[in-house]
């Protein structure tokens, strides 16, 4: 399983945490597609605490964290 943690505004209409079958998602982008999250919405993407990109592959046991960009002042 891959654990997916969503933060702040990405939780709107979604759960905080998802458990996904690793066989059904190859990359972080696949996870984002499954959750209807656009790449442009995310400015911090971590796998097991390390910065990665949407095209990075995921494996069983990974924890993926997605944070939305904030930019107002």
């Amino acid at each position: 399983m891959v654990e997916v943690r969503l933060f702040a505004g990405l939780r709107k209409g979604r759960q905080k945490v998802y458990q996904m079958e690793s066989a059904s998602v190859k990359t972080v982008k696949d996870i984002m597609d499954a959750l209807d999250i656009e790449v442009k919405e995310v400015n911090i993407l971590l796998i097991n605490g390390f910065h990665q990109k949407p095209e990075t592959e995921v494996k069983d046991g990974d924890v993926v964290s997605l944070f939305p960009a904030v930019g107002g002042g």
Partner: protein
Amino acid sequence: MERYERNIPAISTEECEKLKTKHVAVIGCGGLGGYIIELLARIGVGKITVCDGDVFGVSNLNRQILCTEDDLGKSKALQAADRIMSVNSGVEVGCFDEFMTNENVSEIISGCDIVFDALDDISARKILAKACERYNVPYIYGAISGWAFQAAVCLPGSGLIEKLFPEHVEITDKSVLAFTPSMCASFQVSLGLKVLLGREVEPSRVYYVDLLFSETECIDF
């Protein structure tokens, strides 16, 4: 010194004196900037330069502390300068009643010990961050959306702003609640104060605070 007696011992008498020698720029005098200049003036920073080319509008009233119904149409930068002088006449004030651009950024941050990001635009943040790198000035990042904010200390050479805002990123949530800028500004000023005083900070650590779920994440870059 009576003015600052409640600063002590949270900061020392010597540190209070040190602050009087410091020059800080606040770029943007809206949601974040209004609170940042208030806190800097009260804590006793020696010189504050403010910059904003905008005027107050009705939609600012939900969160911008410098904006009351009597201030609609007034310059944000001039209002900020007036507020600093009424809070603390001992503070020297510099005022740029114009938007920060590639052309004027050097003049605005010239001689500053740190710069506060109180902007609401990604491209302007990148202009400011590049100028701070060029002039070796620490940049205190802050950004808000809805219930959430990010804040960080960006030291020259970190490239943090470019990392946080790659080309593909867009801000989809433009909402801001009244308490979000005040919380973010306070956090930024606490970080900036530590940089000014030479206290320990974690540079390039982004503090991501979600006030809806009362959660804080620390993300190192």
